């Protein structure tokens, strides 16, 4: 039995404590979070990939096959090819938001967040791990859709570097957005609320499957307030060039960066206030 006397205890406490000298950036911690998230993705690779592949194929059957035969060209591009950038964006948005919001909400839900909160990781490192993993997953899905699409239609990418840049910045931005939703959400219903209610409609009304020119008068003006229009237009520009965009590409770049900055700002605010992560 342990003895209670102080004299008996003293020798145990003798060697001086070596204070750990943690680095200014906890790379192992970020990597641990990132890998943990990615492991979940690869473990369920079948489901993770099957859904977007099947959905994309269906879009091609319906839009490319059934409708595409009647609409032969949109702004000089075959309709089948024309919808590819929009399709990729559509799944980039939903995948990024879903992955990031679920990624941070799940530990809140199961309580395992306690470990993240008690670990020597900064908020920035937490965001890096979760958002990095979410963005990686959605980029992988986006590229898979691109490959699947290449089986159905003739694709050319005029500005591949710009395409990659849009792909990365937009998936990171929407992953940040998803992270914010995941932090804010207190239930699974709330987790689905924003993607269902806002993002999907904005995407469908954002010119994923048509150009804004095709809309009747007033709606064309309304559409210009939809930020998603700018993102999709820019991404489509990187495929087909100036003629296929709804707005000049400079506007698209500006809108993309603005959205990215706003999401970063909100995440920063969450960090400053500790909003809903801690008691």
């Amino acid at each position, binding site marked *: *039995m*342990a003895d*209670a*006397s*102080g004299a008996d*205890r003293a020798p*145990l*406490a003798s*060697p001086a*404590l070596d*204070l*750990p*000298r*943690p*680095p200014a950036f*906890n790379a*192992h*911690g970020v*990597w*641990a*979070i990132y*890998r*943990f998230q990615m*492991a*979940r993705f690869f*473990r369920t690779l079948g489901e993770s990939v099957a859904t977007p592949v099947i959905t994309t194929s269906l879009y091609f059957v319906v839009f490319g096959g059934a409708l595409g035969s009647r609409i032969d060209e949109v702004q000089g591009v075959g309709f089948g090819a024309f919808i590819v950038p929009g399709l990729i964006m559509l799944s980039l948005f939903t995948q990024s938001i879903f992955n990031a919001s679920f990624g941070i909400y799940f530990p809140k839900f*199961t*309580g*395992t*967040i*306690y*470990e*993240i*909160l*008690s*670990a*020597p*990781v900064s908020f920035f490192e937490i965001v890096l791990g979760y958002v990095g993993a979410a963005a990686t997953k959605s980029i992988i899905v986006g590229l898979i859709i691109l490959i699947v699409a290449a089986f159905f239609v003739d694709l050319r990418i005029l500005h591949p570097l710009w395409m990659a840049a849009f792909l990365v910045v937009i998936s990171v931005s929407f992953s940040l957005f998803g992270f914010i939703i995941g932090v804010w959400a207190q239930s699974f219903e709330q987790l689905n609320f924003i993607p269902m209610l806002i993002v999907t409609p904005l995407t469908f009304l954002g010119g994923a499957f048509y150009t804004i020119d095709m809309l009747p008068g007033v709606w064309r003006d309304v559409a210009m307030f939809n930020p998603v229009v700018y993102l999709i237009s820019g991404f489509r520009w990187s495929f087909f060039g100036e003629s296929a965009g709804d707005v000049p590409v400079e506007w698209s770049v500006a809108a993309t960066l603005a959205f990215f900055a706003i999401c970063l700002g909100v995440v920063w605010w969450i960090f400053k206030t*500790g909003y809903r992560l*801690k*008691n």
Partner: protein
Amino acid sequence: MTPIVSIRNLEKTYTGEFQALKDVSLEIERGEIFALLGPNGAGKSTLINAVCGIVTPTSGSVAVAGKDIKADYRITRSLIGLVPQEMHIDMFETVWDVVSFSRGLFGLAPNPSYIEGVLRDLSLLDKRKSKLMELSGGMKRRVLIAKALAHEPQVLFLDEPTAGVDVELRRDMWEMVRRMRERGVTIILTTHYIEEAEEMADRIGVILKGELIVVEEKSALMAKLGRKRLTLQLQDRMEAIPPELSDWALRLDPDGRELDYEFNVHDERTGVPSLLRRMSELGIAFKDLNTTTSSLEDIFVSLVNTKS
């Protein structure tokens, strides 16, 4: 020497109304086993979680190894391992993965042989490839301990490590705690069970309604808490307590079947041996006897009364 944990005037008010901690100050020495004792809702977990960074204190300060837990959180958190009260685990992951994850999260490079050692110590090595949902409750609890040890902490917080755990595992757990202490690890545990605090701790703090009302060396506290009750089941019914036994403060139950005697285990003379001797001289036979410690609530009440 700087205390390994130093808590100063810590207060916590949840959501602007409920005060869970009231002006708690406490110093814990390196290498000791400290038990926080208190009933449900006393604030034990809140106190631990505040030190570990999970709960943000409303006011007051905490230092670990002389470093402030806010300003130097990377150092203090690297030093601390936490086993939470609730079973917070990733059901779909394997034992090996979640324990390795913890090590990485705390900023350490992978060290499979160290993780293996931890799992072996906790008899989890053969389960390393199992998913957590395939484990029993006791095993899951040990996984939580393995996670807390994965980054080689100097201070280990165990929030009710033996709640809902069988006797054997409880013994193992105590054994593990002693081994940790021999390596110089400071251990702070919470418990409802006074026996557990008695078995394990060097010092005991009693917390009640958010106030740390007593902090004492175990032996000193046990003297205060050491009231026990001896119950004798009589062979034959007794009408009244015979005058020969009037030296002892006895109580006879209404049936006349049981005799109760309250005593303090730490008294020089508890009166128990002499009582039993006297009874046998008088030819009063009993079928069975047992002793019980006064309940924790009784003790808390008496502590609060002596305090005020």
